[in-house]
Every structure is written in C-alpha cells, then in structure tokens.
C-alpha cells in the first residue's frame, strides 16, 4: 500500500465513523410541552427539513395539542402521521394545523411524514 492509499483509507473510515455518530448515535433530549389553562399540553412544531423540535415530552393521561406550522413546499412533508394513534393531518404550507392526541400509556411514539423521511418522537411519561 502506498502512502496515498493509506491516507484515502483512513480518511474514508474516519468519515464513515462520523456518519455513524452523526446520524445514528446522537439523540436529542427533547422539549417538554407547556401546559395551558385549558388543560392541554401544547407545543409548537416547525416543519422545515424536519420537525423542530423533533422530540416532545408530555405526560400520560392529559390531552396533547401539537401545533404544526409547515414552512416549505417539499411534497414529502405535506402530511404528518401519528401511526400509533391512527391520526394524521394535512399540513398546508404556512398554515397552523393542530393535532390533538390523548396519550394513555407511557412510552415513545414516533411521528413522521408519509415517506418516513421526517421523523419526530413523542415521549409520554
């Protein structure tokens, strides 16, 4: 092996390590939904290239209202699906769309766009 080959190999493997760490190993801790006077646990979620924040922490047994605002036109994100709750909502660009859920059991529930490219998590405690 010539030195340039060693260099390319090491750089490549380093890059692979970075990809694994960046996409798979690091996870966000999440944001706790605020409780409003009406008894809802509310959170705003921005839809642009992903969900911001993408991890929402709520308490079980209390209704949750997630207010989505989509600020892009990519067709992937035109819908958000809560598969575990059998709920979905259309997200027209620029409009605020509320999704209401009642998490009964603690656990981690994913939400995503129909193609699964955007993902978020609802952590129920």
């Amino acid at each position: 092996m010539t030195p340039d080959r060693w260099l390319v190999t090491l750089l490549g493997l380093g890059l692979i390590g970075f990809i694994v760490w960046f996409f798979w190993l690091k996870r966000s801790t999440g944001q706790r939904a605020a409780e409003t006077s009406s008894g809802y646990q509310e959170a705003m979620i921005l839809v642009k290239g992903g969900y911001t924040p993408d991890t929402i922490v709520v308490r079980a047994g209390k209704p949750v209202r997630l207010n989505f605002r989509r600020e892009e036109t990519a067709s992937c994100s035109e819908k958000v699906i809560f598969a575990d709750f059998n709920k979905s909502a259309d997200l027209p660009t620029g409009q605020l769309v509320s999704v209401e859920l009642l998490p009964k059991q603690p656990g981690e529930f994913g939400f995503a766009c129909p193609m699964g490219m955007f993902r978020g998590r609802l952590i129920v405690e």
Partner: protein
Amino acid sequence: MTAPGHAARPQVPHAKSAPVAPKAQHIELRVGGMTCPHCPPRVEEALRKVDGVSHVHVSLAEGIAHVSFDPGRAAVADLIRGIRGSGYSAATAKTRIPIANMHCSSCVMRIELGLGMTPGVVKAEASSLTNAVDVEYVPEKTTLAALKSAIERAGYRVAEPRIEPGAEALEPEELAQQQEYALLMRKFWFAAAISVPVMALSYPDLISGLREWMPMGSDTRRAVWALLGVLSLPVLVWSGSQFYTGMWDALKHRAANMHTLIAIGITAAYLYSVVAVAMPELFPRMELAEVFWDVSTVVVALVVLGLALEIKAKGRTSEAIKKLIGLQAKTARVLRDGKEVDLPVEEVVAGDTVIVRPGDKIPVDGELLEGSSAVDESMITGESIPVEKRAGDEVIGSTLNKTGSFKFRATKVGKDTALANIIRMVKDAQGSKAPIQRVVDTVSGYFVPAVMILAILAFIAWYDFGPEPRIVFATIVLVTTLIIACPCALGLATPTSLTVGIGKGAENGILIRSGDALQSSEKLDTVILDKTGTITRGEPALTDVVAPKAQSEDEVLRLAASLERGSEHPLGEAIVKGADARKLALKDAKGFAAIPGHGVSGRIDDHDVLLGNAKLMRDRGIAIENLVPDWERLANEGKTPMFVGIDGKPGGLVAVADTVKPDSKVAIAALKRLGLEVVMLTGDNQRTAKAIAAEVGVDRVLAEVLPEDKAHEVQKLQLEGKAVGMVGDGINDAPALSQADVGFAIGTGTDVAIEASDVTLIKGSLMGVVTAIEISKATMGNVRQNLVGAFGYNVLGIPVAMGLLYPFFGVLLSPLIAAAAMAFSSVTVVTNANRLRFFEPRRLSS
C-alpha cells in the same frame, strides 16, 4: 372607526335595527331541550327577568321563543344567557374566522370588542396562538358577512380561505402543487438546455473536429472546459437548489434524505472537475484531468424531471377525495324569519328549515318535513337507483334531489354532516399506515446514511485496489452509488397505493378506516354474517297469504290488515304494509280487542274477524285442522304464520317474516368464490336459522346466540386459528365487531361514523363486503409489487453502481444512467399505484 367612546354602534346590514328612538325589537330564538308543556313557562319567566325585555312568547311546538326587547337595554347575548340560565339551550352557530394581520396581544381585545358590539354576537374569543377568532352568534340576527365586516371595521383582515376541515382545505394545496410542478419544469428545461453543450464539449475525443480543435492537454481544451464549469454552475445553484436546501434542513435535524445523496453526488462530480481544470498538474497523467460537468448537469436535469412527474402522478392518487370534496353544495335556500333566503352552506345551522327544489343539491343532512321526492344518493352510498323520500325520512347532504320539491329540517351541518365525516374518515385512513409500512420505516431510517457509507467504502476499494486511472474510477463509483440509491421509491411504495385503494373504496360506498384494516381484510378466511339487518332487512314483511276455500287471498289479507290497522305491533304493521302493497282498501275495525299472548279480534264489514295463534282459534271453537299442514310448512321456512278466523270459521293464514335482502344470496356466493368460509350468526331458533341459511346458501350456522355472546362466538372461531371478519350493524354488534380481526359495519344513511368498525358499508348491502375484500386484495397486491420493485431496484442497483460487476464482466454503470434510473424508479412506483384507479368492483349476477 376604531375610536372608542361615542363612536356609533356598528350596524349590521341584515339585522333589523332601531336607528332613532329606542324602539322595541323583535327576535325569534330557537330553544333546545324543551320536551314537556311546563318548559315554555320557565323559559318565558327567565327571559322576562332580562332587563329591557317587554314581551315574550315561547312556543313548544315550534321550539322558538318570540321576544320583543329594547335594544338599548338588552343585547341578544343577554337573552341567550337568560335562556341558558333557565336550563335550556339556545341554538347558536359557532364559527372560526382566521385573521390575517393579528400581530400583537392588544389585537385580541380589539377584535373581541369589535365583534362583541355587533348585534347577534353572543361570544367572541380571539387567540393569537391560532391567529383566529371563535365567534358564537345567533344566525337569525347576523350573517357571516356581517361578522367579517365587523372584523374589518376593527382594523383587521380576514384571512382567506377559512380554516375549515373539509371543503376548501385542498384547493390551496392543489395550487401549491401546481406551482411546484411549474417551477420544477422550468428548472428541468434550464438544466436540460445547459446539459446539451456541456455534454458535447465534455467528450471532445469522441467527436471528430472537436478532437482536432481542442486536443488533449491543449490550452483551448482547458479554456473551453473552464467555460463549461461556469456554465454548469447555475444549473447546480438554481435547478439543483432544492437538493442543497433539502440537505441542509435535514442535516440540522441530524437526518439525511434523497436530497443529501444527490447533493453530495453532484458536488463531488463538480469539485473533481474544478480541480481537474484548475490544477491539472496535480494529476499524474493528462488523461486523468477529466471533467464531469455533464454528470452534475444531467443528474440535476433528470432528477428534477423525476420530481416533477412524481408531483403530477401523486396529484392523481387523491382524485377520490377531491371528488368527495367537490360534492359539497355551495349554497342553501333557508327559511329565516319567515322569508326564503339563499345562504352560503356554512351559515346553515342545525334546526333551520331548508327548501329544496327539483335538480337542487341537498345542502346538509336533515329530516324531511313536507313534500316528497326521489333522491339520487349514488355519490354517497354507491347505490345507483334514486331513493324515494317522504316526510320523516332522512336526507343526506350533497345528494341530488331529482323529482319533487320538499322542505327539511337541518339536523347536521358543517363538519358534522355525513359527507364531512366521510371526507375526514377517508383522509385519516389515507394518512394511516399499514403494518407492512413499519418494516419499510425501519429500513428507511437507516437507508441514506448506509448508502453514504457504502459509497465511501466503494471509493476506498477502487482507490486502493482498482485499475488505473484509480482516482477517476473511484470518483465515478462514488457519484454513481450516491445517485442510484432511491429512498423515495421505498417511501412512496405503500402510502401511494393506500391512498388510491382507500379512495377507491370511498367511491364505492365503502369506508375503510385504516391501512391496518385494509391489510387485515386481505387475509380473512372466515366471514361471520349477523342475520338480522345484514342478510335480512331486519324488519318483518308479509310473505304468504293462504286462503284454502271460499275466500280469496286478497279478502283474507284485507280483513287481517284492517284489523291490524290500529296496531303498533311490528308484525301487524308488516301485514298492513303488505296489504297496502297489493292496493287493498282497508276499513276501520269496530270493537277492536287485543288478547295478550294470543292475537286480536274485531268486527269489519259485518264480519267477526280473529287473528292469532292456534290456541286463540281453538278457544273460540274454530276448526283449524285443514290449515295446520300449511302452518307447519310456513313455520319450517322460518316464517311466522298466523291464523285468520272469519265469522267463527277458519279463513286462512297470513305469514310474516324477516325477508332476505335482494342481493344477499349473490354476495354470499361471491364471498365463497373468494375462498372465504361464510358463517351465519343469529339469535333465532335452529329451525328459522336453517331456513334462512338454506335460502341464501350459508353452510355453517350459529343459532340461538344471545346478543352478549356474539363477541364470544367470534373469539371461538379465532381460536380455531381463523382470521375472522364480522359483518353486523354498528350498534348491537359493536363488541363482536371489535373482537373480529376486521369489523364490517352495515350503515345506512347519515350515521357513517360507526366507531367500532374497521370498515363501514354505507350502502346497506352485503355486496360491499365483497367489494371491500376485493379492494384490499388489489391494494395489498399493488403495495407488494411496489415494495418488491423498490427494494429490488436498490438491492440490485447499488452493488452494480459500486462496481461489483466490473471484476467479472468489466461493466461499470455510468452516473448518467444511474440518474435516469433513480428518477424513474419513484415515478414508476407512483404510476403503478395509480393503476388501482381502474379497479372496478365485480358486478356478479347469480
């Protein structure tokens, strides 16, 4: 106009107002919850207590309070509060109006104040979170237009369109899709136009003339190539902009998608070319200093074209829901204050009297008050024959009135109508996931980073062990691998087919609740049919009349029916209906008497008529021996025969039975043909059950099942290892429906939102079960084709792109071909899903 203090009170154009001296105003308020004669006085008393009220009259029959009041001292809202305080409800309309320019918290108050001063407004609540105001108002007193102008007077703009679930929601979305498509096509044409000269001039060695004009290593070639690089840049920056923004947005969320792959691929190709032109001396040999501008531009052009075609194709997948939304009536002719007014359909409130003329669309759900007509309900139920409607019948909003004029009372409006429920259910179902999708989701979560890793591994392998020029091969392989991978095809495979399949169901009057229900329906091997209301009509009808001697059948029936005319017993009603159907003139019975547990007696046209069981006849000394064989025959057929005695002699028999729906037999045969075991479940005795089962062709019968044991019977079959579908009505059979793997609820008319069911058949026919299973089979088959295609494409394409074939066959994929393959793989998936649009339910004859 927003100045407080002495500003004139805003006047609503439609409302009666008192411009000068305080003059009594009159209003009619609809009061709900008044069930008994002592209710109106309570409401009247409560209203009289309101300051400024001069005269009150509450009518129980109309359910309306007529109130005269001094608008200077009392507002309509006070009256409403008065009614509510007395324990009754006041019918008001609620609406949400979005505001375009609500920026500060003081806006909330100004909007609420502006609306609060409008006559007829009961409550206004604005919220800066939703950027909308929720208004409760009395529809007799104001209109939506008046509310909007009140908001405008307060200095705000109403955002159009209104955020209402249902009707208008899709239109802006469609517009956005069209704009997106047009933009992508512009980007494509630009990229394509640049690609042509870029491609030609990138391979001068292949074209004679060019080869001589710009030989390898010459300054001309370098200059031309540098120019091409400049020319290609706008293709990347503009036509390919969505790849970079998409990659960046995803990276911020530690995610990667198709955009990431394409962006890295085209950038790698571009940067290599920049180095080759700017610093050719870095390369050991001249032929290595090649450019790949064409790769960047052609990939952008092809992938952008693919995206555009995908948008077009995806638009077609939701055609069914667009059709449903298009069914909504726009206006309604309503009686308000005794006058006929045309209103936008959003303003119709429950309790309104709506007038429908021939050819009109029925605007909302309701109950027919007067008049009669034939109504075409095919758009909702899929039933093509118009349905006769008379007073008391239910009418469904968005169906088409054919022949007569009628008035009906609106019962469900806005988002509560059957159509709105159907739209919402279909949308939810289309957005739900089939279990099969979970696998795909797991894969696609790892897919893109995995492809990036594979591309890097391929680069290393080619650089370390590949043939010369290694750096060129390694770069080509890296770019090709990144570009050929198509996460979109994987992601699109299931949802597009589900959208089309569930939409197809809705077109045929079948509401499939979720992807789960669709996938489970396909796997059913046993179908349990509840007898009453499912196989049969669920109400008794006259089936046989036996008249052995002397009397004619019609005479026996006429006497029996005349006797039962006053009866409220369902069997009696069936006899009367049967006589009506034969157009017999019925008389009133004199001396009518019911003999509990035995029958009825009375005198008609100088005849003493008896109707009842054998014991009644024997008690009255009537010899019925001759009729007994016929009685037994009818009883064995599962019918309920009754003796008729005339003037102390045996007159004949009338038999009543729950009759089988006309298409039950055909549907059961079709279910069997689909390979399903059909089981009938009923509370009837064995004899009746067997008779019906034989008539419709069911082999297995579970008779004498108590209603509460139905779910248990379903479970028993499931324990036999069967995937069980249960068909029944949504109310009595709810536990059994939810116990079954798939619950099919037979619904009729407007109660479509049957909770316990996985599938709702709007048209009360068993054929719907057949169609639902056929749709599920077609859709799941389509999903599997898509998944096999998408997985297969990636599983085969990626290794080929990595150069796995090269050591054996010397074949290496061009990045240009990879781009074409990638662009068209996702279009193919969507197009395949669209094939489902041509699904036609089989129309089976016997």
